[in-house]
Structures are given as structure tokens and as C-alpha cells.
């Protein structure tokens, strides 16, 4: 069944307009970032002499090397631990179907509805009491806890769909529960773990509120947390602010383009199964 020409082109034009709405903001900060420091250009205006040096300047004044180390450290601490412990829990709830697994699942799902703003104040006082306030651990530990509802839920959805024959055959052969998990099911779960890991990395990089409240020194924060502080300092220098923003968001866009399938799958399937 072929569609009318008018309809086809109206539809296409609508989609092109939509893409323009999505992309123009990126183009605008890009052209703005190329204008001389401390000038106030128009929203969309190619500069006479593009100041590519603004990116280097933003890299320097934002202390970007230190920030990259800090953010990478936080991601490397949060993501692997989250993946391991949520996969173990998802395995126990979805595949072993331990007694009480329905209750456990509900308990984790309940966490999906909690806004971080609702628990940030006690997290702050808890960390003061534990003596980890103002260290990178102050971001790492709560993030792992906050990711558990989504991560356990996502991994459980994978394990609950695994055919039971695989596990039965292994158990008949005398495998222990740990063997079953480590040697058989972990390799089979590589795809959902990759998707989850990609998503958690981006979320960690982008985490703002925890960094803002729990770590005073911007150079020990996540990238997004540091960008917040950068905005505070350079709010009046629009080109430099735009350059800094691009530096912070570029890695997320690159990761998205490379792992697009994984990120979309994890976000969309994760939500639908929820």
C-alpha cells in the first residue's frame, strides 16, 4: 500500500524539523564556543576568526586532566562493583528463585520510584558520621546503592528468561551454585551486562546532585558535578562556558554513538520490563 505524495513529504518535513530542534542547540553552543572569550555573540553566528584555543583554555581552567582522572576513578569503582553484585542478586532472584524472591523483587522495584532529592539529606549526615564525606567514596558508595533497583531488576529479567535445562544439566553433573553462576551463566549474560555497564557508566559520569552535595572540591567530583562548579565561575564568559560544556558532554555522545544499541536497549527494555 503506497502513501500519497503529499502525506509522505509532510511527514518527512515534520521529521526534519524535529531533528533540527534536537540538533540546533548543539550547533549553537559549538559556534558560540569559537568566539573570542568574554564576547557576547549571536545564538547562531560563525565567528570571523574561529578561536579553537578556547577548548584548550577551558581544558586548562577547568583543571580537566584532574577531573578526567577523578571521573574515571569514580566510574571504575562504581560500575564493576555494581555489575557484579547486581548480577549475583539477579541470578538468585530470577534463576534460583530463592524463597522470598518475589518480596525481594518488589523491594528493589520500590526503589525505582524514589527521587534522590527525597533521601539526599540523610545520605549527607550518614556520610559525615561514617567519615567519608568530601572524599570520592562519598559519591561511589551511595551510587552503587542507588543503582541497585534498576540493575537488579534488569539482570533478573535476563535470568528469569533462561531455560532451566541449562542449570539442571549442570547440577546433575555435580556443579555447585557458584560454578553454575560463574562458569555457566555469567558468560551467557555478557550481552545484558554490557548494556547495563554502558548505561551505568554514562549515568555515573552525568551524576550531579550527589557530587554537588557530598564533595566540596570540584576536582574530586564527577564530570557533571564539576561542570556545575565551572558554570558558577564562568557564567559571564559565554564562549568559554560553551567550550567547557562541549568538553564534558562530548564523551557521552561518543559513547552513545559507539554503544547505541546497548544504551537504547538497556534504557528502553529496562523501562518496559519495569
Amino acid at each position, binding site marked *: 500500500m503506497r502513501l500519497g505524495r503529499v*502525506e509522505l513529504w509532510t511527514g518527512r518535513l515534520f521529521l526534519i524539523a524535529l531533528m533540527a530542534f534536537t540538533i540546533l542547540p548543539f550547533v549553537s553552543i559549538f559556534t558560540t564556543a569559537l568566539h573570542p572569550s568574554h564576547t557576547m555573540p549571536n545564538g547562531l553566528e560563525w565567528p570571523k576568526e574561529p578561536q579553537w584555543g578556547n577548548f584548550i583554555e577551558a581544558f586548562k581552567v577547568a583543571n580537566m586532566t584532574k577531573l578526567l582522572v577523578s571521573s574515571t576513578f569514580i566510574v571504575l569503582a562504581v560500575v564493576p562493583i555494581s555489575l557484579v553484585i547486581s548480577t549475583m542478586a539477579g541470578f538468585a532472584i530470577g534463576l534460583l528463585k530463592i524463597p522470598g524472591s518475589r518480596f525481594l523483587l518488589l523491594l528493589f522495584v520500590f526503589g525505582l520510584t524514589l527521587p534522590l532529592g527525597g533521601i539526599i539529606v540523610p*545520605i549527607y549526615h550518614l556520610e559525615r558520621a561514617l567519615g567519608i564525606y568530601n572524599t570520592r567514596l562519598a559519591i561511589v558508595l551511595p551510587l552503587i*546503592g542507588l543503582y541497585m*533497583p534498576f540493575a537488579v531488576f534488569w539482570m533478573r529479567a535476563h535470568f528469569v528468561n533462561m531455560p532451566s535445562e541449562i542449570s539442571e544439566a549442570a547440577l546433575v553433573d555435580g556443579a555447585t*551454585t557458584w560454578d553454575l553462576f560463574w562458569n555457566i551463566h555469567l558468560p551467557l549474560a555478557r550481552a545484558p551486562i554490557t548494556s547495563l555497564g554502558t548505561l551505568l557508566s554514562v549515568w555515573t559520569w552525568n551524576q550531579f546532585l550527589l557530587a554537588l552535595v557530598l564533595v566540596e572540591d570540584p576536582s574530586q567530583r564527577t564530570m557533571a*558535578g564539576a561542570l556545575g562548579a565551572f558554570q558558577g565561575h564562568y557564567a559571564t564568559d559565554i564562549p568559554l562556558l560553551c567550550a567547557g560544556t562541549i568538553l*564534558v558532554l562530548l564523551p557521552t555522545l561518543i559513547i552513545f554513538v559507539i554503544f547505541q544499541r546497548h544504551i537504547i536497549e538497556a534504557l528502553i527494555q529496562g523501562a518496559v520490563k519495569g
Partner: protein
Amino acid sequence: MTLGNDNILTATAVSRRGLLGGRLRRASIIGWLFTLPALGMYAAFVLIPLLLSIYYSFFKWDGIGPMTWVGLRNYVTVFKVPDLLGTIYNAFRLVLWFSLIPVGLGLVVASVIHRVAPGRFGALVRTVVFLPQVIPLVAAGIIWGWLLALPGLVNQILRSIGLGAITRAWLGDFDWALPAVGMIGVWVLLGFCTVLLLTGISKIDPALYEAARIDGASWFQEFIHVTVPLLKQEIGVCLTVTVINALAAFDIVYVATGGGPGNSTAVPGIQIYILAFTEQRIGLASALAVMLMLLVFIVILPIQRLTRETA
């Protein structure tokens, strides 16, 4: 002979099940140990803080000195002080922008992609509209802070189409700041809704669309009679996720307006932050936090009920 063989097979199957029953029971004890690390982290940094929030809300506390029991007085204060209750009103106004518009527009976009661009062009649109979903919300706030500024792109476009009279600093305007913040939400969340709904459409039996088209159904008829009713569950998921985003909004508002001008864009998240970390009124901040969490729950439950039952 065949019969005998069958019997032997059945017998083996039964004994196997018995054997596994015992093993699986032992496995279940070890299974609980498997959940402990995840449960422990979740309890320590989510469940215990949740209980502490409720506990703090009954006290007057500056965060350092002694705590004074005040019963429900903090909750009464939230209801009595217009600036505090106003944050909840603002949260509901944001639901329109962060939730209803992205879901509604997402439905339209997804169905248009499905109808006129099922191939590579559609895949490109899908990728592009999803981009804002992966960047930090702080970056989205900064980008739009510049776009909506006086010399920014939005006013530049308005001037170029002859609407120079209505240009303004959108985020600094008492009447326009909240819709302007809302636009940022539309930009960020539209891609998520579009892609989720598009995945849903791809699961609808193509025969239904073929039948509709053979009957000469227009895009609109197809949209109302096939797409929307059959996407009930996906629409529910979209609404749930975006409503949580709206009521729990913090990053975008903090960066774009900080709650201003005046209190015109102050949402609960911002107010909790100010009360707890600049005014040191922990009890009052916690009362508002508990109300925010209850609010999310109360709004989400009916959405889940309505869209899940028939699915």
C-alpha cells in the same frame, strides 16, 4: 519394547527431579547469600536514608546541635507557607512539560516515523532525537540557559520571523521561566519517549496496519484506532518514567534558574536543597522530602493500575 523404553525414561525424569529438588533447596540458602551484597548496599544508601528522612521530619534540627521533637509541625509548616506548598504546585506544572508533552508528541513522532520513514531515514531520526537523553542534564541546562538568553538562538529566530516584539530573557521572566524550563525537559525526554513507543509499535501485528491502509485509513485514523489503543502499556511506562522525572526534577532547574526568578521555578528538589544545605533546617527539608516521595507514589500508582490491567 517401545512402551518399556518410555517407562524407563519417565522413571529417570522423576528421580532427576527429586535429586534436583534437594540440590536446589540447598542452592536457595546459598542463593540468599548471593543477594546480600546488593541488598546491603541498597539498604545502607537508600532504605536507611529513607527511614531517616521520615525520622528527621518530626524534629527541629540544624544538623549540628540537639534535635527537638516537634511532631507534625514541620508538615503543617509546609502546608501553611505559600513558598513551600508552591514548590509542589510547580512540580505539577512541570508534569505537563516533562511528561504529557513528550509522551503526546512522542506518540505522534513514533507513528509518523512508522508510517512515512520505516527505513534508514527513520533510524537516523531515532538516533538523533535520542541524543539529548545521554548528555548530562547539567549540560542541557547550560545549553538552554544560553539559547534562551537575550542574545540567544531562540530570540534570534523569533526576530528573524518578525516576532521581535516578544523576545525576552525567557528564564528571567516571572511568567515564562517555568515554561522555558519545561522546554528543556521536552528536548531531553522526547527522544526517550519516541524510541520507547517506536519499539512498541514494531511489536504491533503489521497485518493490522495493512488492513487499515487497505481500507484507506488516514494517518490520523490509523493513529487513533490502531497505534494509541495498542500502545497502552508503553504509554503507561513512558508516563511513569517521565512523571518521576518531572516531580523529582533538580539538575536542569538548579542550573537554568536556581528556582528563580523569585520562586517561580522552585520545585521540591531545589527547595529541599536550599532548606537543608543553606538554611540548615533539616527537619523542614525532610518533611518536604517525605511529601515529595509520597507524591511520586500517589501519582504513579493510578497510572500503573490503568495501563497494566488489560496488558
